[in-house]
């Protein structure tokens, strides 16, 4: 496979990760076709919205202080938080995109989904309980524990807002495309609905409402996906071998119909059972794997969830449940992808006559829902897919608002002397501002190729937030200057390398193929190294008075991070 083709593959997969609506091979988000208006789906979605608005009303009565707003008062249990983390993490893109990737490439889709799972143990072993013991509202509380507050908070707020912005744009554009496909409504309507609802959830219900929206969405998504996977497996007598055999047979038939010789067709059909074009270049593979694995440990909206539980034990339980549900979910999407091969690719009602799926490649799971559960279940799955985006954007907005109100306003501008009411007011104003900005960006980016945005968000999280967090918690000699300089180096290098990589330089900015300076799919291998080396080197050379103070503070920080003695507890309720 040539380099251009290989880049196309990566692009395609990144596109799946972003919007869940891009065509598997092209990575162009403009391809979502508007479908006839689907009233079943719209009514089911309306029921979900009304229900979540009632929850928001209930949550609003309990959201009085800044602690309630940021962390639901710290009274969420580990099991609930695990579901909420899963709800925050399993996006519509994973559901529609990965099942479509499995339908297209079989085993390759599995390789892709594994990347999104393997970061969770690392979060558990190195960060979860330490985060809970040291922090209060945001991950900056942890990173800045023994350092000079102002510079670290400015860095952490930058890291948070940049990651949130890219993730948010991807979700907004995805929502707009999805609503054209699933509900048959206009793009801008979807963007405005998502923006308005997320504003209401966060503004009035804060973390309590956000958490329950995420929990409900996680249950609906896991329930719907379980039903689909069971319906597929029942048809094969619960024998994976029978399912695989049928899928290979169908893929072989499609290749034969396309004019392949019997041998070549059989080979192509069997190719879904092993790795294909997903990984050609080991550097890209490792770099992308690093972005996903360590990016998970640096996503601000995920890290924030660890402050909603009362203690380290519940923090650990949260990650265990989150990992379990997310792992289970990826097993289901794999079965759903194979189900789509056997039920959707064989049914002309779902095909456009040219061998493609009606509505685009990422409709695999949606068509399968109709095939196994009829029109009502199709409406259900469509509504769940849209609800999924809502839950994710609510978590992102809350995290962005906290960075502005807690890190910038309360700590940097008010030097920690802001009262809770004023801080709460600033977070609400920021929520409104973020909602409006997200809607405007969503509309502005409608026709843009934004395939790179989610992988960029993960790469920045892995290169800036993660190194600063890990080094400040675990390395005694880390200093304020080291963390800030290294963190910004990681942030800027991941941004710069992404801009000159094929997915932005060629696919988004329209430069000729092969002109990108940085040939790999993800910058994380290089930019994360730059971040860590930057922190290490600058800290080592830092001989200022502040550096001595930073190092002297390590012992007290370590004792608290290991034992939780003195940690911020649950605030009543």
């Amino acid at each position, binding site marked *: 496979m040539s380099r251009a083709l290989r880049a196309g593959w990566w692009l395609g997969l990144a596109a799946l990760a972003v919007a869940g609506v891009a065509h598997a091979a092209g990575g162009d988000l403009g391809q979502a076709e508007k479908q006839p208006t689907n009233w079943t789906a719209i009514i089911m979605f309306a029921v979900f919205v009304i229900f979540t608005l009632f929850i928001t009303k209930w949550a609003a009565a309990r959201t009085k202080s800044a602690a309630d707003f940021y962390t639901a008062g710290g009274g969420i249990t580990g099991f609930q938080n695990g579901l909420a983390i899963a709800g925050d993490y399993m996006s519509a893109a994973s559901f529609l995109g990965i099942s479509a990737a499995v339908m297209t490439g079989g085993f390759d889709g599995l390789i892709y989904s594994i990347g999104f799972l393997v970061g969770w143990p690392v979060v558990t072993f190195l960060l979860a309980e330490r985060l809970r013991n040291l922090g209060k509202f945001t991950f900056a509380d942890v990173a800045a524990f023994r350092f000079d507050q102002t510079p670290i908070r400015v860095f952490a707020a930058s890291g948070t807002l940049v990651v949130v912005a890219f993730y948010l744009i991807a979700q907004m554009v995805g929502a707009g495309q999805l609503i054209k496909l699933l509900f048959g409504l206009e793009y801008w309507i979807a963007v405005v609905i998502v923006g308005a609802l997320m504003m209401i959830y966060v503004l009035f219900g804060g973390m309590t409402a956000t958490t329950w929206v995420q929990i409900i969405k996680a249950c609906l998504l896991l329930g719907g996906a379980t039903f689909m996977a069971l319906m597929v497996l029942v048809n094969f007598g619960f024998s994976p*071998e029978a399912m695989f055999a049928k899928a290979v047979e169908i893929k072989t038939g499609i290749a034969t119909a396309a004019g392949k010789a019997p041998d070549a067709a059989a080979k192509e059909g069997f190719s879904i059972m092993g790795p294909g074009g997903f990984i050609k270049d080991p550097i890209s593979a490792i770099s992308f794997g690093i972005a996903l694995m360590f990016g998970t440990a640096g996503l601000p909206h995920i890290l924030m969830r660890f402050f909603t539980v009362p203690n380290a034990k519940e923090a650990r339980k949260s990650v265990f449940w989150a990992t*379990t549900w997310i792992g289970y979910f990826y097993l289901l999407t794999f079965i759903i992808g194979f189900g789509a091969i056997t039920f959707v690719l064989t049914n002309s009602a779902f095909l456009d006559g040219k061998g493609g799926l009606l509505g685009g490649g990422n409709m695999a799971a949606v068509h399968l829902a109709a095939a196994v559960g009829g029109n009502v279940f199709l409406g259900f799955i469509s509504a769940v897919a849209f609800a999924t985006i809502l839950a994710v954007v609510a978590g992102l907005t809350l995290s962005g608002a906290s960075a502005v109100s807690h890190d910038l306003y309360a700590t940097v501008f008010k030097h920690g002397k802001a009262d809770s009411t004023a801080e709460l007011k600033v977070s609400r104003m920021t929520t409104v501002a973020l909602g409006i900005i997200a809607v405007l960006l969503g509309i502005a980016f409608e026709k843009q190729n934004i395939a790179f945005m989610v992988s960029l968000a993960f790469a920045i999280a892995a290169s800036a937030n993660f190194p600063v967090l890990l080094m400040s918690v675990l390395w005694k000699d880390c200093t304020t200057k080291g963390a800030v300089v290294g963190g910004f180096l990681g942030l800027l290098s991941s941004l710069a390398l992404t801009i000159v990589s094929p997915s932005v330089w060629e696919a988004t900015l329209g430069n000729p193929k092969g002109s990108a300076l940085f040939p790999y799919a993800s910058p994380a291998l290089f930019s994360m190294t730059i971040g860590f080396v930057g922190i290490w080197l600058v800290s080592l050379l830092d001989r200022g008075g502040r550096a001595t103070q930073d190092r002297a503070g390590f012992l007290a920080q370590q004792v608290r991070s290991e034992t939780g003695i003195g940690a911020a507890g649950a605030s009543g309720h």
Partner: protein
Amino acid sequence: MEADLAQRIARNPKYQELKAKRSAFGWMLTVLMLVVYYGFIMLVAFNKAFLSQRLGEGVTTVGMPIGFGVIVFTVLITGIYVRRANKEFDALTEEVAKEALK
């Protein structure tokens, strides 16, 4: 936390034991996870033929149980850490806290 309290806890041999045990266990499992995941990626990058081998008479390949195995391993290794930490490490932490605050 007051500096002398931190000093006192840090000198407690039980705290030292907790720190050493958790750190060794956490890093060991982290390395294990890295080896399993990047081992899998390396297998995909350099030995596709191995993963595409048929297991038996049918179409199921060696890659399928390995891929599923990585997912199950990820969940299990997380569970193993959480189980030990919630029992052993938390018990130690409680003793340290009790001795520090008495």
